[in-house]
């Protein structure tokens, strides 16, 4: 299998054979000798490309295999780079320069700090040639006097080029939009049960990178996210993932009254749906005959979204699908900004009657959400474990706090989670979700450390902590005075402490658990959890904010109304600049996309969550208190809602939507 390898740095084309590994290594040595910046060289895009060619099993092997392959190459590079003049500061090890005992944990932590260290070089201390290269790849701005200055010296304490570091917006957009412009290669079979996720990660990441247009308008407006054809294709794909079924027996937790006098009053479960199958007419003699043959009565149409066509409805893929549909549904059917993309040359025969030529994807998305709303509710209820308050991820599937979060989020966005006084038990006229039991289950997942695990007693973990905290916030069960006595309260002080300790003092990013490694995706899981936890404490005295509402939505509404920026009435309890620094310097891939840490390859998931974390850092922080890292204007993303992780204006629009319930 002949392939050629073009080194992105030296641009030399090389044929590939079994010795391509040697080719790659000699290539990098040459590059180093030419003075090419070690930071750009270190980028795992080059490593990944070469390693993919050099070690064909790379793409199919486990993560551990990747790490081993990468480590070999990296240690060679490390050796080579040490020949260069010392460019980075001494690396402080974990826990303030001291390790008393060497263990696996401390070894891995040291390695991680070492792999991040080269990226933390003081940019002003780099030789001009290397700075020029960073400009070429887009990490520093062109035509900047400080950047192009011939003086190269360390100013000792700070880094005056910090405010110049760029986000590679175009490259990230190019990377993300592949999933709707091209087909994914074979190794993606491992994500064949996560296709709504792939769509959500890329669509949301792309959404954060949106830019405004003034395009003949009075006020800047964010453009529609994709072309109409692309959007319609997305809705069609998600529609294929819809998996429905019928049930004649509503779950017993909906039933009130006794055997003779059952009352079914849940307004959502028993709403009529166009695809329900009515009971046979009891006056019809034929149906009496059918009843003798045990013909079932009223059949309720239920369903959820699976990971692909024909796959079982699953809470996580439902969440991803619903979020993606909310993004699409809240675009503007009159926005003409992407029309050229639809009319550009197309391989397929133009079918003039194709759906996308006559209807806008936002309408299709809204229609699909309207259609699935009631059946989704019924399916969600069927997943509830009444004895614990937990939910299963799918029929006969695992129970953990992710299920609670994904289900509660979908319910809230689709107007199925009505405000309910948490002190009163659900009555037959109230919806079933949001019962005190559900809250108690989430609270019971808080561990002695303060964070939350997947199930009670499981180790405190960033992903599950986010799920628990966000679910409680959405259910309005967090914060002072939110306990009517009907459910347990989360210990928010302990939570805040655990979350704050997850930010790594050296790297600046977050780890998922105590004594584990930094990972870019936790920028969101931990960052957003902190944004939510921060809202649980004392607020500044403010007449503008209503303590009982959603502060992020309120701020959005206020800024729309008054056409100016507001700060949130509470601080953000993490070091914003340090997180941004980690994301911009260590997580960005120079060929587009973002990653866990420098030694890991980019992927859509990490791209989505690094960017989401960056958005939280930018928008949930306080301009008077927090110092940002990087070029604040150039790196600015659109604001994501820390509970739902889609753009705040989209959350507002969806929560305002009027659903028809027949």
């Amino acid at each position: 299998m002949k392939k050629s390898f073009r080194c992105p740095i030296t641009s030399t084309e090389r044929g590939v054979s079994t010795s391509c590994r040697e080719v790659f290594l000699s290539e990098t040595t040459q590059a180093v000798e030419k003075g090419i910046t070690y930071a750009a060289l270190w980028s795992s895009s080059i490593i990944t490309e070469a390693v993919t060619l050099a070690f064909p099993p790379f793409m199919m092997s486990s993560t551990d295999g990747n790490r081993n392959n990468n480590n070999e190459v990296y240690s060679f590079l490390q050796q080579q780079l040490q020949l260069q003049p010392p460019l980075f500061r001494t690396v402080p090890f974990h826990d303030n320069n001291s390790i008393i005992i060497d263990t696996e944990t401390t070894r891995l932590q040291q390695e991680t700090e070492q792999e991040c260290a080269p990226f933390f070089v003081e940019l002003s201390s780099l030789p001009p040639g290397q700075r020029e290269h960073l400009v070429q790849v887009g990490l520093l701005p062109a035509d900047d006097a400080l950047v192009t200055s011939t003086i190269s010296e360390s100013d000792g304490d700070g880094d005056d080029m910090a405010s110049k570091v760029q986000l590679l917006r175009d490259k990230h957009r190019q990377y993300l939009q592949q999933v709707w412009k091209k087909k994914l290669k074979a190794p993606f079979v491992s994500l064949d049960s996560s296709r709504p996720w792939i769509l959500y990660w890329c669509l949301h990441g792309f959404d954060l990178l949106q830019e405004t247009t003034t395009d003949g308008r009075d006020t800047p407006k964010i453009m529609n996210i994709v072309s109409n054809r692309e959007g319609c294709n997305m809705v069609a794909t998600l529609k294929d993932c819809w998996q429905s079924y019928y049930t004649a027996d509503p779950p017993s937790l909906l039933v009130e009254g006794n055997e003779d006098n059952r009352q079914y009053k849940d307004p959502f479960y028993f709403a009529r749906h166009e695809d329900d199958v009515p009971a046979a007419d009891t006056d019809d003699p034929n149906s009496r005959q059918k009843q003798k043959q045990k013909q079932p009565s009223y059949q309720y149409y239920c369903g959820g979204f699976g990971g692909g066509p024909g796959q079982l409805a699953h809470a996580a893929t439902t969440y991803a699908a619903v979020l993606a549909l909310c993004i699409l549904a809240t675009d503007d059917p009159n926005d003409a900004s992407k029309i050229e993309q639809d009319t550009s040359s197309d391989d397929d025969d133009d079918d003039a009657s194709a759906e996308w030529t006559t209807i806008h994807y936002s309408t299709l998305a809204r229609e699909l959400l309207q259609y699935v709303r009631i059946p989704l509710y019924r399916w969600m209820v069927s997943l509830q474990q009444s004895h614990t308050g937990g939910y299963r991820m799918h029929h006969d599937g695992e129970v953990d706090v992710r299920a609670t979060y994904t289900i509660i989020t979908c319910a809230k966005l689709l107007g199925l989670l009505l405000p309910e006084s948490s002190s009163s038990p659900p009555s037959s006229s109230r919806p079933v979700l949001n019962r005190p039991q559900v809250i108690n289950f989430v609270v019971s997942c808080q561990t002695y450390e303060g964070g939350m695990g997947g199930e009670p007693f499981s180790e405190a973990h960033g992903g599950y902590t986010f799920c628990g905290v966000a679910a409680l916030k959405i259910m309005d069960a967090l914060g002072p005075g939110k306990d009517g006595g009907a459910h347990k309260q989360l210990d928010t002080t302990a939570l805040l402490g655990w979350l704050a300790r997850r930010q790594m003092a050296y790297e600046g990013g977050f780890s998922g658990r105590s004594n584990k490694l930094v990972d870019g995706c936790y920028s969101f899981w931990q960052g957003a959890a902190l944004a939510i936890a921060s809202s649980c404490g004392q607020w500044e005295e403010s007449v503008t904010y209503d303590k009982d509402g959603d502060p992020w939505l309120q701020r959005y509404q206020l800024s729309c109304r008054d056409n100016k920026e507001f700060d949130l009435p509470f601080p953000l309890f993490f070091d914003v600049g340090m997180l941004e620094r980690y994301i911009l310097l260590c997580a960005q891939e120079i060929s587009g996309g973002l990653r866990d840490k420098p030694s890991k390859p980019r992927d859509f998931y990490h791209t989505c969550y690094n960017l989401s974390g960056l958005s939280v850092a930018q928008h949930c922080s306080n301009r008077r208190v927090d110092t940002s890292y990087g070029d604040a204007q150039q790196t600015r993303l659109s604001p994501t809602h820390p509970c739902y992780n889609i753009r705040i204006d989209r959350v507002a629009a969806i929560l305002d939507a009027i659903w028809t319930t027949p």
Partner: protein
Amino acid sequence: MMAMAALNDAMIPIEDLSQVFSDMTPLPQNDGSDRVCVIQYPTAFALAYNYMRAIWQSKEMSQRALKLTATCAKLNPANYTVWHYRRQCLKDLGLASNEDAVRQDLALAAALGGPNPKNYQIWYHRRALLETHGVKELFCRLELDYIKDVLREDAKNYHAWSYRQWILEAVDDEELWKEEMDFASTLIDEDIRNNSAWNQRWFVVHRGKQDGKPLSMNEARLEADFAIDKGISVDPYNESSCRYLLSILKEQLLEGEHDLAKKLVEEHEAKVSNLRLAFEKTNQDPGKCVNLTATWIDLLEMMGDKESLQKAVSLAKGQATEHDRIRTKYWLFRAKQLQNGIDE
């Protein structure tokens, strides 16, 4: 571990698919240009899953359907529908309560998972099989040993630990709880910073019960001493042992006998305070051990008297301004919280 031959027996070879399912029409998926996130499936993958979809639609539960799920699970172990359907076939074929069949399926899951599985579906399959069949002594031992093997590869595998907790709770055997305590201690010996092992210790000592009953004073004392003797005094930079100590004490204060709890807190505040002195004796600044200071602050807060709280406020400010600046805002908030405690 399942031998290659046995694994192959559980599956239908790709080349035999058309023949085995000659009576069925495979169901393709729409992966055309009007769809997104389309994956270029290898031919074998597409073929197997086209038949799998046909089977799902027909709802056939048979030996060949069972084998097809194994083939498909190997191609994508994350396909939860495949695993779910497999379990339905096992039930339908009367195999779910058959000990040999369950043992084979556990071996299949192990074979497909590899040495360090991080796949929800594979772990859940084990649990679902045993939820249906019942854990029983035989499977309990087998599973605990299997999990131990996985933890040897990765002592922090989250799925492995969750599943391990479920087994122990399901069986709830005193001997096993005692053995597990030893196991957690061994892992702490091997890596004092293995937070999963400390978490497991908490789980075991509470016997997996969240009934609001705290540990007895004796047990709490043993645990607090363990945290100091085997944890903090060995490596004060390690967060795991500190959080463990603090929570043991806090639980006694909140839910145990208050006066005894207070005394226990005082004893341990003194021990931690002494550890800080040890730094000074060796000409090191104890402030550099951020973790130890944080622990001492929480202990002083538990002491609750004015002098302790004032000390805590001052230490918190020191963390904010000098020693733990990445958490400046958090420490300032803590200082304020502690100050409010004094003012009240």
